[in-house]
């Protein structure tokens, strides 16, 4: 036999040989019909017949090339009777994972990006969604808070809705991930405790992720149609592969830098005391005012000591002499407390994960387990997270396989006790009572305070360390997902698939306010009659005309518990038919149906009188509940929601020789979220698209390899979304309610019209046109992807004035519209590539602008000038406006132009809804230009990664630090040094005067002026930045070292994350342009160093 082969070869070498063979698919042995068989370097060739057979004359010494769409091309030495098995083309670049199916990239017509987890994942950042920053053109990630579990603000091609969330859809292994608690984009930056459970994928261990596929345009996302208006992010987790079994260990050790005063312009204690002295001189810090006031610091403490007689020593806490006071104040002056140092630490965060994977022809598996232990960057921010993941595929028979995935995670987290923030629309103050967020505290608290002393807040003694020990939130989160997918190929070209998934998430937030906390003690504060009459936390019985205020919390504290639970069922059945006719016509048909059912439950409970240090026995008095009845205050609540949808979809792709591709999708979706109206709930969505692979054309061949490939794409689509969760009134919504009645005997329950029916209610919709170019140069050393798109969003939920007869005067309906457009560019180059050294560069740029074209917003001035801003016709969806500041007047008061066009100090109406045209437009709060620049250098086993991200074009509001009055607790910024002091200063400074008490008492509306100043044109900065996101140096130890060892591979990586801003607006003075300093549970992304150890066995 061997000899015969030898002979044949000799013969072949002599001239043309006629050979024949069969081409089959490797995975099932079925014949490949229409595979192309060419003689290498020659246009002569043939295609396989219906049995996969071919016959071809091959010149001596030439090889043959066998290719088929979706399969790896093989080049082989011809042999008679050869059997060629083609492998699925699994090269990462060649397949687009839509979450429902895998598409051949060459015939895929949509705009998409694939991000490999191994390139993107940031070591030491446990939230995987944060890793997408700067990784894909058109995807912007704003870390509005860096606290674990809070979702960053992610936008794919910008906002798509005005009141809706514009959040992209997350799909993990084919299953849509839902948030356990539906939080709007603006709420993400609120700092409220609810944001801790805002990330649907906080339970994913980054080590388990294989890749992200970002679907951007309507063509790519159209299979999700009525869910996909804001883009889709498809996450694929790791699977086992055939062959040897592996055990991998990965360990991350992270240390975070404490924030430093050198980065902020906070006054030191000496300067601060100087300002307090001026405040005292101006009448603010008089003994009786301070001692009877709700909050006090250094001065209040001094007065308190002067007034405290110690019967044991027979002395007062502090002698009432000038000298003693002077000494006391001087001590404070020298204190320079470093709150960051006191409240933050650089403890080691550890994240360990172990994975096992392997497989045979029949089945493969991937299993992993991980533990993240974060002792907390600041007090009360400890997080532990444990995850487990199992992914097994088994081929029951050749054409029938079952894939089972189950994953679970548990998280235990601590957060500072926090209440929700609210805005006083009259004065324009954004406030959060009892805010003890350490980051905010460090920035807001005077450096003259002694960290070991108790000062006063809300009439009760306060010390931040005591408070953080006695007022905190314990968060417990369980996430689990179980899914199974059955795939069956009854015939070669047809694949049937059924997938079912159950997800369960349960979170409990236990806000523990112990009896030793300031927050509990302030409910009992009545040290004298003035305090008793002023403390609004006390209760006066209205039934007794002469009742005195009493406490409703004589003992204990509060146990406030919020539970969120979500259970969702997903089922999808699909069929995929893929066939090539005559080697020319490639047809792919995909269709199916899916249903989802999401049950969410939320409960809240306010346990009063919990005695944490007395056997956890509650003690309460009936007056608490009586007060609740009278003030219409509920002590517990329950909310169940059920979201269901059903959809039918079909997608067809036709490709002529892989050159010209045409694609169409239609999806018909129904949801119960718009209410029980059968006409409103159904919506068809669609897309048509095409692409031209120019490099497949003959005329392109001469240009290669200088021009390696070139593809042009275009698509037009309609996709949609359901709009904000609060607008679901296709039929009238009746809800039970308890009307307010001042006396408990008059209470009755009723049913109200929550929203009058709107039978024209429909989905929010988007038309999108996308044009894209993929090009490769110099043998693909340079790859360029460019997309340009134009979007028209219409039927958006907006506000409209009605006549107010059949529905409210201001009603929500599908009345708004917006448009957006943008360009996205990705360039990746291999600059140098030698045997040992390589240098690659990735540059990503995106530009996205939007404009609201129709909206009658009915929000007040405050909404336009604070936070994220708001939408106005002709401006971006989140546009920030300012009150026009026109300088200080001769008294040092700020002056503004108001809506009447007058220059004014106090005549600013923060509640104005009609005439907001006078506000100055500052810019969008969402960045316009985002992207990154990454350079990777490798030398042998070393790998140096320098990764910059950038963001330009947005504005941010500076922290509101100015006020008509300050207390002796306030910390002030260095700007105060330049404040107006004497007449004439108004010519050289724009920092207003420190008001005297007399000035304020004469004109209390001056407080409007100081709040207006916080939201004026003076107090805005550019949000532009270039950030050193990551510098890392890795080393892979050479494989040869591990010969004959259990260890197969070992690598180390040292990484610095978020180390510094290369560029930012100077006006920010240390304020992170991405971060919203909202207090509560929010914190910025820390600067950190991570050591990653990976070992394979």
């Amino acid at each position, binding site marked *: 036999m061997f000899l015969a082969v030898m002979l044949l070869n000799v013969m072949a070498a002599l001239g043309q040989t006629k050979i024949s063979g069969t081409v089959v698919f490797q995975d099932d042995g079925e014949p490949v019909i229409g595979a192309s068989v060419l003689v290498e370097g020659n246009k002569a060739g043939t295609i396989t017949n219906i049995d996969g057979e071919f016959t071809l004359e091959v010149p001596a010494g030439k090889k043959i090339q066998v290719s088929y769409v979706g399969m790896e091309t093989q080049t082989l030495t011809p042999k008679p009777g050869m059997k060629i098995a083609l492998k699925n083309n699994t090269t990462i670049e060649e397949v687009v994972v839509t979450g429902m199916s895998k598409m051949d990239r060459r015939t895929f017509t949509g705009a998409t990006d694939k991000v490999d987890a191994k390139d993107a994942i940031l070591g030491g950042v446990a939230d995987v969604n944060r890793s997408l920053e700067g990784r894909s053109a058109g995807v912007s990630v704003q870390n509005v808070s860096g606290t674990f579990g809070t979702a960053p603000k992610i936008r794919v091609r910008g906002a798509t809705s005005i009141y809706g969330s514009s959040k992209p859809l997350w799909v993990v292994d084919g299953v849509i991930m839902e948030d356990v608690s539906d939080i709007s984009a603006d709420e993400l930056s609120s700092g409220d405790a609810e944001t801790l459970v805002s990330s649907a994928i906080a339970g994913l261990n980054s080590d388990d992720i294989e890749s992200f596929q970002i679907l951007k345009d309507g063509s790519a996302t159209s299979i999700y149609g009525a869910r996909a208006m804001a883009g889709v992010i498809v996450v694929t987790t790791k699977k086992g592969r055939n062959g040897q079994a592996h055990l991998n260990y990965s360990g991350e050790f992270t240390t975070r830098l404490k924030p430093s005063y050198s980065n902020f312009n906070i006054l030191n204690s000496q300067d601060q005391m100087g300002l307090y002295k001026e405040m005292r001189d101006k009448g603010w810090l008089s003994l009786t005012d301070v001692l009877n006031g709700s909050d006090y610091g250094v001065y209040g403490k001094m007065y308190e000591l002067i007034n405290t007689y110690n019967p044991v020593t027979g002395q007062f806490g502090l002698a009432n002499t000038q000298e003693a006071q002077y000494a006391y104040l001087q001590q404070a002056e020298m204190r320079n407390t470093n709150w960051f140092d006191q409240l933050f630490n650089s403890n080691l965060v550890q994240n360990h994960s172990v994975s096992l994977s392997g497989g045979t022809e029949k089945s493969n598996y991937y299993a992993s387990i991980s533990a993240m232990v974060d002792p907390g960057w600041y007090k009360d921010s400890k997080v532990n997270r444990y995850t487990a993941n199992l992914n097994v595929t088994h081929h029951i028979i050749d054409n029938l396989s079952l894939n089972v995935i189950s994953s679970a995670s548990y998280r235990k987290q601590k957060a500072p006790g926090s209440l929700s923030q609210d805005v006083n629309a009259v004065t324009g103050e954004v406030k959060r009572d009892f805010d003890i967020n350490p980051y905010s505290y460090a920035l807001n608290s005077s450096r003259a305070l002694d960290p070991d002393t108790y000062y006063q807040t809300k009439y009760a003694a306060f010390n931040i360390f005591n408070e953080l020990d006695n007022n905190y939130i314990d968060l417990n989160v369980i996430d689990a997902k179980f899914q199974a997918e059955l795939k069956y190929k009854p015939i070669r070209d047809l694949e049937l698939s059924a997938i079912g998934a159950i997800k369960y998430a349960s979170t409990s937030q236990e806000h523990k306010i112990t009896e030793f906390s300031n927050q509990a003690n302030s409910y009992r504060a009545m040290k004298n009659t003035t305090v008793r009459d002023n403390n609004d936390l006390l209760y006066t019985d209205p039934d007794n005309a002469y009742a005195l205020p009493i406490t409703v919390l004589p003992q204990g504290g509060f146990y406030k518990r919020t539970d969120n639970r979500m259970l969702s069922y997903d089922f999808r059945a699909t069929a995929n038919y893929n066939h090539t006719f005559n080697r020319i016509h490639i047809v792919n048909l995909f269709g199916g149906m899916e249903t989802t059912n999401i049950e969410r439950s939320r409960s809240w409970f306010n346990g009063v009188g919990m005695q944490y240090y007395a056997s956890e026995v509650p003690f309460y008095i009936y007056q608490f509940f009586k007060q609740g009845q009278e003030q*219409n205050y509920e002590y517990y609540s329950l909310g169940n929601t059920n979201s269901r949808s059903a959809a039918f979809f079909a997608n067809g792709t036709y490709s002529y020789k892989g050159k010209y591709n045409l694609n169409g999708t239609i999806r018909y979706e129904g949801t119960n979220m718009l209410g029980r109206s059968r006409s409103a709930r159904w919506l068809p969505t669609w897309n048509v698209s095409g692409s031209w692979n120019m490099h497949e054309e003959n005329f392109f061949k001469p240009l290669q390899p200088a021009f390696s490939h070139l593809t042009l794409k275009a698509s037009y689509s309609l996709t949609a979304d359901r709009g904000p969760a609060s607008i679901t009134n296709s039929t009238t919504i009746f809800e039970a309610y308890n009307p307010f009645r001042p*006396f408990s005997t008059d209470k009755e329950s009723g049913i109200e019209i929550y929203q009058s029916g709107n039978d024209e209610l429909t989905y929010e919709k988007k038309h999108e046109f996308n044009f894209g170019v993929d090009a490769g140069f110099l043998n693909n050393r340079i790859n360029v992807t460019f997309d340009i798109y134009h979007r028209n969003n219409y039927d958006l939920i907006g506000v409209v004035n*009605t006549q107010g007869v*059949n529905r409210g005067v201001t009603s929500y309906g599908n009345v708004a519209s917006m448009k957006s457009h943008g360009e996205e560019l990705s360039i990746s180059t291999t600059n140098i590539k030698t045997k040992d050294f390589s240098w690659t560069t990735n540059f990503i740029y995106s530009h996205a602008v939007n404009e609201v074209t129709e909206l009658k917003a009915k929000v007040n001035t405050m909404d336009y000038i604070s936070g994220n801003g708001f939408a106005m016709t002709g401006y971006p969806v989140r546009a920030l406006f300012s009150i026009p500041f026109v300088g200080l007047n001769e008294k040092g008061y700020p002056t503004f132009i108001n809506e009447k066009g007058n220059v004014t100090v106090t005549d600013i109406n923060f509640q104005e809804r009609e005439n907001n045209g006078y506000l100055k437009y500052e810019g969008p709060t969402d960045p316009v230009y985002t992207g990154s620049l990454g350079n990777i250098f490798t030398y042998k086993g070393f790998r140096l990664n320098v990764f910059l991200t950038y963001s330009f074009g947005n504005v941010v509001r500076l922290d509101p630090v100015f006020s008509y009055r300050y207390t002796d607790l306030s910390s002030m910024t260095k700007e105060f040094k330049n404040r107006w002091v004497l007449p004439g200063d108004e010519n050289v400074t724009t920092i207003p005067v420190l008001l005297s008490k007399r000035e304020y008492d004469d004109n209390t509306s001056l407080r409007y002026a100081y709040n207006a100043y916080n939201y004026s044109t003076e107090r805005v900065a550019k949000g532009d930045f270039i950030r050193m996101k990551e510098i890392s140096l890795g080393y892979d130890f050479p494989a040869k070292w591990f010969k004959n060892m259990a260890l197969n591979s070992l690598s180390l990586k040292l990484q610095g994350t978020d180390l510094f801003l290369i560029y930012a607006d100077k006006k920010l003075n240390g304020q992170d342009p991405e971060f919203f300093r909202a207090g509560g549970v929010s914190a910025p992304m820390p600067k950190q160093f991570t050591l990653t150890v990976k070992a394979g066995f």
Partner: protein
Amino acid sequence: MAATVGFTSCDDYLDKLPDNRMELSSPSDVSKLLVNAYSETNPAYLLEMYSDNTTEYYNNAWTAESRFQDQAYAWADITETGNESVSSIWNSYYSAIRTANEAIAFIEKQENKDEYKAQLGEALVCRAYAEFILSTVFCRAYNPQTADKELGLPYPTAPNYKLLVEYDRGTLAQLYDNIDKDLKRGLPLLTNTYEHPKFHFTPAAANAFAARFYLYYQKYDDAIKHATAALGSNPATKLRDWASWYSLSMNYQVQPNAYISSTNPANLLLQVTYSMWGIYGGPYSAAEKYAHGARVSKNETLQAEGPWGKTETAMAGEENSAVFYTNGLSKYILRKLPFLAEVTDVSSGTGYAHCEFSVLNTDETLVVRAEAYALKGEYDKALADINTELSKFMPHMSAPLTIEGIKEFYNGTKRPNGAYVGGLDYYTPEYPTVKHELHPMGFTLEEETQDPMIQCILQLRRLLTIHEGLRMQDVKRYGITIYRMKLNESDELIGVTDKMTADDPRSAVQLPVEVLSAGMQPNPRNTNK
């Protein structure tokens, strides 16, 4: 075929309600729905600012609460939003109408309509009442000669689920006719079976409303009939015990809480509203620029002379005071209006401000009857009702009034030559009195007896309903000229800035700007203003 089955079963699957919203299913559900068929806003604050109960003080320390107060006092088109803005009033009363209409629409679909009689009655009366209150704000007073030309208000009788609907305002005649129809249909169906009857239309409350409505409609027999039905044969037993109320502490919420007590038999219908009026109209240093101040109190209202003598003395006696006022406060107050806090978050102290009003009560109904009698010329019956009321309201009055006494007080003594001696001059801004020149809408008053009787009744009603917004209706109904006056801290008149005469179209408050921008026909305004 398979697809059809698929969609139908999907529709069933998708019929699951998305949240805990309710669906009506029983008479008790409809009753609960009707809890919300009462507006949660009251126009009192607006109408007090609009009426002659309020003057402007020129003093730096006394500032306006908001532009709303400025605009309301200036009879301007009100653009400000807030609890008590015109758009809130519009919204809230039409919301009550929508609720009633949802209830009626639901009842009409039921097969066992008989079980829903009481609910249907309440819904109809609620709808009529809400339209009636809106008409007192946004329409001019009813004048039988011009009502078919004056603008009315949309009167929807069924829900409409389109987003944007344009309504025709119709005429004031149509509006009054519609209210009349709903009342006639709804009132007989009402029962007394409410758990909290003071917050619902009982037959007594509905009769009190009907009495006022028919008085305004100038159908005096109907007004008398309904007032009598509300008051019973011995009204005195149902009136407020003012004497003990005057004796309560004026501090805190003691008097206001007693005034709105649901156990007080005088209160026929109570209304809890979103309102800061308890603060702005109460003994707090807020909103002091426009106030019911000393000049009005002493010359025209609480401390003025009446046929009963000095009012405050007649109320509380020589030794005691009935009126709350204090140094540094511009306001003179009868402490009826509570400030009530609903707390949505105890820890942060946030919530809603409320006020509660006695919107229908026996005292006012009795005065309605007195006026109807007086307008019919039955002066003795009118006098009897006035005296019954005064016996309670002014327990310290020395002796009951007589017709002669009333005539004497307002007009003086008539000489044989027809001239009068004594009596009061007509009111002018410079020399304010309690006697106004009356220009009734569509009728005339007999000068000798009827006019002073009506003067007396108007003065009494102004006192009884002070701070509650009803004065403005009498101003409109009787075409009283009112003025915008600027006073200094010492209550001296600095200037008269504007006046509203009987034919001034501004007596109908302009519709909310939002409603106008959605295409509703505005109230006319004199262009030269």
